[in-house]
């Protein structure tokens, strides 16, 4: 039975229609809706979504594996073998993912086989034990930052699909400052990071400003900006007079100077670097901004109800521009952590799939900074483990993208999960309520 919200008549309607209708013109942000759902059983839903996506991913790995398919071809003569092969394929994949992202027992064995402990440490065997975790952190860093770049505007009711363009904007500035100038050690890193923030913020701000001035939907503007920046980057890297490294014909910049590298955190054998701290700090800053400042209150208020905020005297347009600027800056910072932390050059593929991954991170993170960090670490682990998994089991790395999309799909549709697991609905509607706006809103 449904629990009707206060100030409405007892729900005489069937459960799917028992929408909390005390707020006609529902314009709550995804975050607020999520918060509402959290008071009930969102944790359960999220966990079940993870489990479901894992199971489906496992089935997919098992039944696209040629060995397994052959075994199932002989199902009636050897059913045990068929099931066993399927289990092995799925479990092997997940175990390889785990080994690549969290802990690999072989590395510990190798550590203890060394003659002396200090020599083992010197040769990097101790580092090897922590390498999976380090890789997870390295992969999670840009995911957290770009995830924040989606989550923050989401709280203000905007959907930023332009992570890619803002990432490229930041990457261009960071790389250019990195290779074209020589500055003292600490100063150079800071200048590059600030530059990347500004580069991303410029693009985010542009999208926000267009929305604020004309009302053009930010989704279409940011998608178009993604392509603009993609070709602009290719253009910059296509000519020696622009950013292409002299001498070669590869579309790649000069390597950035070592003074502009982000400092490593755990010795030279591990790639974990200060970028991870930047990501955590940014998450903290976004939390503080949203929950402890007037600006953040205005963001959330606008996300909850644009018209009420306007009536209350908030400058909605200025806040749209502001939130998109900050968000663009966060995506730019993500680029800085990639360019200055791991890649050290800029090429036409530097932007990877961060634009899309960011959306899944933000949605799984329920639009909240803490959630984004957790989701970023989870997906970072998947990314860190996937290359090793492909080598070890032959399962293509794209399985990670499938699992990510499935998780978010299930998280976004709690009624489906409830129906699947026969959960008692605490309140129908909850998370499934939408932002209710069209292109021109």
């Amino acid at each position: 039975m449904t629990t009707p919200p206060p100030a409405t008549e007892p729900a005489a309607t069937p459960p799917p229609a028992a929408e909390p209708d005390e707020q006609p013109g529902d314009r709550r942000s995804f975050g607020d809706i999520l918060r509402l759902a959290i008071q009930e059983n969102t944790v359960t839903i999220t966990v079940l979504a993870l489990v479901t996506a894992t199971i489906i991913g496992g089935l997919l790995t098992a039944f696209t594996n040629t060995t397994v398919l052959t075994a199932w071809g002989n199902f009636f003569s050897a059913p045990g073998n068929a099931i066993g092969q399927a289990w092995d394929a799925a479990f092997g994949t997940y175990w390889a993912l785990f080994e690549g992202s969290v802990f690999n027992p072989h590395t510990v064995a190798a550590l203890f086989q060394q003659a002396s402990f200090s020599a083992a440490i010197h040769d990097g065997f101790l580092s090897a034990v922590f390498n999976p975790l380090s890789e997870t952190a390295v992969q999670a860093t840009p995911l957290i930052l770009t995830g924040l770049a989606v989550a923050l505007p989401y709280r203000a009711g905007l959907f930023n699909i332009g992570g890619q363009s803002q990432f490229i904007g930041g990457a261009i500035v960071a790389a250019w400052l990195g290779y074209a100038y020589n500055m003292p050690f600490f100063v150079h890193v800071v200048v590059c990071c600030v530059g990347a923030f500004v580069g991303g913020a410029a693009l985010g701000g542009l999208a926000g400003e267009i929305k604020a001035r004309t009302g053009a939907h930010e989704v279409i503007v940011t998608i178009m900006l993604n392509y603009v920046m993609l070709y602009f980057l290719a253009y910059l890297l296509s000519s020696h007079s622009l950013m292409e490294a002299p001498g070669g014909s590869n579309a790649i910049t000069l390597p950035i100077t070592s003074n502009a590298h982000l400092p490593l955190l755990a010795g030279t054998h591990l790639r974990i670097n200060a970028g991870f701290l930047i990501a955590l700090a940014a998450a903290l800053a976004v939390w503080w901004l949203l929950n402890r400042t007037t600006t953040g209150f205005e963001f959330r208020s606008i996300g909850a109800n644009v018209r009420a905020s306007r009536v209350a005297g908030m400058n909605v347009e200025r806040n749209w521009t502001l939130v998109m600027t900050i968000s663009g800056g966060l995506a730019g910072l993500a680029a800085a952590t990639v360019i200055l932390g791991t890649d050290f050059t800029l090429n036409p593929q530097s932007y990877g799939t961060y634009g899309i991954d960011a959306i899944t991170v933000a949605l799984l993170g329920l639009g909240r900074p803490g959630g984004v960090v957790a989701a970023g670490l989870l997906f970072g682990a998947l990314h860190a483990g996937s290359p090793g998994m492909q080598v070890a089991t032959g399962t293509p790395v794209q399985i990670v993208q499938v699992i990510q999309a499935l998780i978010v799909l299930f998280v976004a549709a709690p009624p489906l999960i409830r129906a699947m697991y026969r959960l008692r609905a605490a309140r129908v509607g909850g998370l499934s309520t939408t932002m209710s706006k069209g292109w021109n809103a």
Partner: protein
Amino acid sequence: MTTPASAERLPVLLSPGPRGDTAAARFGGRFAAPITYALFGLVNILVFGAHAHGDATLSFTPEFAKVSVPNLTLAAAATCYVCGVISIALGVTRLLDVLGVIHLGRVWRRVLVGAVLFLFILALLVWADGGQAIAFNIVNLLSGTLSDSIPIMLGALTGVICSTSGVINIAIEGQLLLGAFCAAIATSATGSLWLGLICGALAGSLVGILLALFAIAYRVDQVVLGVVLNTLVLGLTGYLYNALLTGTYSNTLNNPNTFNPFKIPLLGDIPIIGPVFFDGTVFLYITYIVLAGTQFGLTRTRWGLRTRAVGEHPVAADTVGIRVLAYRYRNVILAGLIAGIGGAYFTIGSVGSFGPDMTSGEGYIALAAMIFGRYTPFGAIGAALLFGFTTQLQSVLSSINVPIQSNLLLLAPYVVTIIVVAGLVGKVRGPRAEGVPFIKS
């Protein structure tokens, strides 16, 4: 009891917000059109005219044509100057119209836009071919444009139908990609191109079913949902491609035939028009049929009237007995068939075998074309052709070694889209209930 939609969307009661006429006025206002025309004229004169030299030859006959049309040889610089002067004259005409001296009807205004665009392209081509030994084949350019635009056109028509029914479809990209994938596999496995076409269409429809289910039944935010579905399809096809189509099965599962062009008798022999419009693959003719069907269906049939009612004011539609949800389900799923056919074009219509992410964002371009085309079938087709034209122009120009940055040319349509979308807001409204779930009370 009302839905959130109805109270929210009553047009008269809404405060205009940052859009409407004020926005247009701020964005350059009434003088935007004449100024733009004059700017195009100046570019024709100062950029193309000043740098053009020699004669340009434009040919209008494809190879092996029965009827040949004589080539047109123009003095490059003079042609550019003439184009520029005419454009400026048209700008002045438009200015007089704005000032109220003369009155141009809606039709004439559109003719002016078309004329200015035509003159600009003519000047560009003449400048590009000026002094070159090879004649510039206009017919090849146009027929290439038409066939390259097929997926964008079909995707945009899908978008038009979904939007008109009140559902935002961002999953066009996913529909195209899955259509391409399934068509390739089905054709390879069975050897039947028509079966491949049908499977491609069904694949598009499958994504449509997911979209409809989550958007209509679970009321997930439709913009988010579309992006997540795209990610899911991207990951799934990429995964299956690597797991199944690269190794043992690559010859049996990813090696389809392609449709041959079919020239319509008589019509196909008309000079210029024939080879462009009546000498293509079956996809081109399907596009004509779908375009005609959509236009006729939406504006002249009971189905169209009801669909528009469902998208504009679901409560009213429900009151008069139209089954809103059933209409939305049916339209979204049927529209998926169209995008699926568009996806099939990528494999069995042009290159044959499937490659990961081979649609490369054309679904998003289709989305932009839909908005650009003011949610009308013919407008969407026109916008889709504009995108196809720039891509085609870029490849033709780079093949004749024109000193123009291909990346900047590729970037141009996206910038134009941003400007147009920003400028059109307030003048164009999508269906009022687009993206707003309907909750029957």
